[in-house]
């Protein structure tokens, strides 16, 4: 059936379209702090047994052979839009509440609905209650609160938050903890640079930064996105060409069907 080749090519074009969408989202977020790039994953569709009769079997008088069935595939489908959690470049900002994680781990924040979200975006602020919150206003968890006596904070590589008090003394006001996942690629993107755990990511493992495989916290730095513009451009070219080549299949099927239509000429 010629329509199978058409449907197969259409599935290929659809897959590449999705690929371009993923790439364009990566490029759009090239300057988003803590952004992790996505990669579309594909998988072939089911196969069907199709019988082919050997062309000259009747001429030869040969018996039909059992090995005349071939397997023909039905195309491709997208399976996953996987996050690639490689380290982004770390850039200095000198802002005391800008934190970059160097290595594995996520900041854990509490959303207003009571669920947890995870983020690599360490551009924190202090809200009206003195709580350390993300730029979208979600509080770090465990919460860290500055009181009115705190002048400035210094945050160690292990996440210890020390506040310089009025009068020159200093006191530890909390510890930032990080969450790690077995399969970070399985996290769900919530937007706002936040991720949520899923069955695929596994449950979070909470720990102290700079210990047991957790990354270290760097005060005064932010993690840039890990999107590499050259790589994305190349991926875009490849996707565009793949789209084009699948459209060539459509064209060829059409050519062949026209020929079939012209078999009977009068």
């Amino acid at each position, binding site marked *: 059936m010629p329509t199978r080749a058409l449907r197969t090519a259409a599935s290929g074009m659809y897959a590449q379209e999705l690929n371009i969408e993923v790439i364009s989202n990566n490029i759009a977020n090239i300057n988003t702090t803590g952004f992790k790039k996505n990669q579309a994953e594909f998988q*072939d569709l089911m196969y069907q047994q199709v019988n082919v009769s050997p062309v000259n079997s009747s001429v030869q008088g040969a018996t039909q052979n059992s090995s005349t069935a071939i397997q023909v595939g039905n*195309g491709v489908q997208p399976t996953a839009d996987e996050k690639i959690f490689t380290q982004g470049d770390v850039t200095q900002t000198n802002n005391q509440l800008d934190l970059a994680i160097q290595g594995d781990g996520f900041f854990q924040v509490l959303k207003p609905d009571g669920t947890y979200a995870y983020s690599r975006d360490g551009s924190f602020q202090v809200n009206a209650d003195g709580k350390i919150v993300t730029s979208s206003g979600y509080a770090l968890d465990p919460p860290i609160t500055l009181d009115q006596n705190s002048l400035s904070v210094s945050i160690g590589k292990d996440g210890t938050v020390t506040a310089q008090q009025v009068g020159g003394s200093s006191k530890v006001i909390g510890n930032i903890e990080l969450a790690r996942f077995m399969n970070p690629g399985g996290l769900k993107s919530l937007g706002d640079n936040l991720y949520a755990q899923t069955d695929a990511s596994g449950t979070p493992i909470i720990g102290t930064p700079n210990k047991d495989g957790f990354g270290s916290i760097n005060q005064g730095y932010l993690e840039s996105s890990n999107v590499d513009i050259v790589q994305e451009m190349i991926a875009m070219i490849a996707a565009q060409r793949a789209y084009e080549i699948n459209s060539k299949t459509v064209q060829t*099927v059409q050519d062949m069907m026209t020929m079939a239509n012209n078999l009977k000429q009068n």
Partner: protein
Amino acid sequence: MIKGIYTAARGLDARMKNLEVIANNLANLNTTGFKKEMPFSEVMNQYGQTQIQQVTDFRQGDLAQTNNPTDVAISGKGFFVVQTENGQELTRNGSFKISDNGYLVDQQGNKVMGQNGAIKIDMLSFEKQKSFTISNNGEVKFGNNVIDSLMIAKMNDQQDSERDSGTNFSATGGFQVANQNDFQIKQGYLEESNVNPIKELENMIQVNNEYQSASKMITFLDKSLDEANQIGKV
């Protein structure tokens, strides 16, 4: 002469099916672990009968770095073994993840087999140990604790296999554990599809031309028969 028309018609049918094979290869240009299907051809067996031969091209695809610890690629010969509802199937697609109950699974949720059964990751050991590594010879480790080794299989006869979705193959001819020297496991890499678009385009042009020849043959035969029908007309 009428037989000739049927022969040419079967030629048309075969070319269209070959185009379907090419279309599927091209659609899977970016499918991890995909192995291309060669357009089938007719061969003469030892009894002088024609036979359809379909060959899967199992050549190595390029390895692309992802840095995801649960992505693995095989460099060399061999297949990962996954437990599906149709029994154990072989695949070159090493895009794995950890299921909610701690098993190493593929994208469809099929368990990945180790040499001592399905590979299960103990979450406690994950909390204590630093890193999850898969070594070159397929050992799955947490820090220095070896959990199991990936089962890498080789088919008894590579062409005696059936395709299934998810770039899986079921080895109808059976499989055995592959020789340690025949492969290397690369953690943080995925094997790309081995489809070469230029080669596929070339095949497509060829199929198109052959289709045209066969259709010309039919119109020619049709014309000849028409002329034969004119004989004796007054």
